[in-house]
């Protein structure tokens, strides 16, 4: 197995006819992802390089059996596109769009959760299960198939770590970018739960950054409910208080949300935390080798 995306994924892309949507949607298909449909209101009946386009996600589900939706529409329409996918009966929604207002996400988060739909993102690079499926913008060439699960708030930082693992001859079961927004559909705990249950995953690398308390919560959860080894990395030790560091969620307010607090919380629960992406990858390699 792998988690969230795999051989069983049938993908519908909201915004497939847009420039980015076309580029990444077809790139995902080239990787081997089963791209079954695109959706753009008013463009039903067209196609993008042979992929049928519908007016609604419901039609893509009914006619093409789509079970996973990727959202690539502009920020002000993106929450509605997620809502539409949730209502149309897909199992998983992966929202790449950056810049969705947080009050929109507050409502959309609960709609997805109440409907039992797994939401990844928004403002995330997507999910890659090497050798099986890629949904999103993660460059698959930096990752090999293997037994390390990666869950991360950051895209490029994940590529950095993935590449170091690959150079060390290690690979990944699934790489999950959960996104750097204040409200994301799935947090570390949701993804750790899936990796814990996934028989292909032997070790989990968790990549966090300043802001919020998702890493601290994850530390508690790891101590109680994760039997597999977890290696951590946190970015933002040099970030000043009160300044947003790129991601909408990456901001230290008062004494909470600092990288040190997160590192301390993880180490207190027995998670080894690398001081650089390089060291995190090394620790992961060592830990895996010691188990073999």
């Amino acid at each position, binding site marked *: 197995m792998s988690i969230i995306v795999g051989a069983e994924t049938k993908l519908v892309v909201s915004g497939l006819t847009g420039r980015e949507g076309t580029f990444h949607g077809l790139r995902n298909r080239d990787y081997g992802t089963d791209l079954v449909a695109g959706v753009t209101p008013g463009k039903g009946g067209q196609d993008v390089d042979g992929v049928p386009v519908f007016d609604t996600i419901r039609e893509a589900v009914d006619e093409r059996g789509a079970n996973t939706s990727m959202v690539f529409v502009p*920020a*002000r329409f993106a929450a509605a596109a997620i809502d539409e996918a949730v209502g149309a009966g897909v199992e998983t929604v992966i929202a790449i769009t950056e*810049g*969705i*207002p*947080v*009050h*929109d996400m*507050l*409502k959309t*988060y*609960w709609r997805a959760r109440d409907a039992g739909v797994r939401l990844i993102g928004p403002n995330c*690079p997507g999910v890659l299960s090497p050798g099986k499926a890629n949904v999103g*913008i*993660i*460059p698959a*060439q*930096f990752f090999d198939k293997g037994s390390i699960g990666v869950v*991360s*708030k*950051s*895209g*490029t*930082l*994940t*590529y*950095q770590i993935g*590449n170091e693992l690959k150079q060390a001859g290690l690979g990944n079961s699934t790489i999950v970018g959960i996104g*750097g927004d*204040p*409200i994301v559909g799935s947090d570390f705990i949701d993804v750790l739960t899936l990796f814990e249950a996934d028989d292909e995953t032997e070790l989990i690398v968790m*990549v966090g*950054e*300043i802001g*919020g*308390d*998702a890493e601290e*919560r994850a530390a508690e959860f790891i101590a109680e409910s994760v039997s597999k080894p977890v290696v951590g*990395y946190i*970015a*933002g*030790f*040099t*970030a*000043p208080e*009160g*300044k*947003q*560091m*790129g991601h*909408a*969620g*990456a901001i230290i307010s*008062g*004494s909470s949300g600092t*990288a040190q607090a997160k590192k301390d919380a993880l180490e207190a629960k027995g998670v080894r935390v690398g*001081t*650089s*992406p*390089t060291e995190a990858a090394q620790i992961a390699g060592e830990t895996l080798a010691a188990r073999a």
Partner: protein
Amino acid sequence: MPSGRHATTVDEAVAGADEVGYPCVVKAQVRIGGRGKAGGIKVAENADEARKHAEAILGMDIRGFTVDEVWVEQASEIDAEHYASIILDRGEKKLLAIVTAMGGMEVEEVADRDPQALVRRHLDPGAGMTSEIGGELAQEAGIDEDVRDQVAEMLVKLHDVATAEDATLIEVNPLIVTTDRRVIALDSKVTIDGNALFRHPELAELDESSSDDPQERMAKEKGVTYVKLDGDIGILGNGAGLCMSTLDVVAQAGGRPANFLDAGGGSKADAIVAALEVITSDEKVRAILFNIFGGITRGDEIAKGIIEAVRRIDIDVPLVVRLDGTNSEEGLGLLADADIQNLHLEKTMLGAAKAVVELVEGS
């Protein structure tokens, strides 16, 4: 809010004080919290005191922000100081209302000293805040019975404003009860979600994410994601996480980063030129580190940007470049052919961090 007057000069402030009457309060108008602690809120008993306070406060620096404006209002006869806020709780994915009878100090302080005194309630995304919930919170917080309804109404209003204006924080502190039993929001702080400014053009005008820093202002104009820090090594990375990580690794190598700059995904040459213009406009910068791991971003585009920037702007500090990922080999080839002075190519992130620190220390 009590009625008052805006003033941008000392004379205006004194005239405003005369109009609202004495005693009055002179308050610094800045877009950051903590002004009371910094001496930005003073009570004046007469015109001389109003003048003295206005002189002290106008032009004052509060946590990096210069005070250009004061608000002068009638001093209320205060019987009690409370606290109320609506904030976004990221962990619970809900709005959270907090009320405490102990106002006037930082809420974190209350949490440390007497956590029992803080009353918290997560709000259901459908129902929001009602006067019933507000009344319960006021009661649990131990606020006097005769003013609970007013506090409840205030909470409903705060929630309405939070949702209507896309606020992630609305904090009223102190929320005062006057001797004649009125409830007044004496001081408040509001944080608006930057992602939602498109539907609040009037708030977007206020926004400059409030920077007095010339580089940060320049970055904003050019659409560059930049945060000024106090070191001397300019940093350019792609992606917020990798960029933060680069700052950390440079600091671990003994260097001091001058900035955070996320060139973003899919940067084209022009964006790199703009980014370098911002970084080099900071005179403290003595070397610049590029740390690029291309996913959507293409290494050849980054290299073209560097070559173009060197041609267009005068860069007299060394550049250390680590280029990896998509099209990195093409990019490295372009850079090698361009024969740029003072350009150092490094293979790894750690190697690049060490190299840039050595260059600064050796210069």
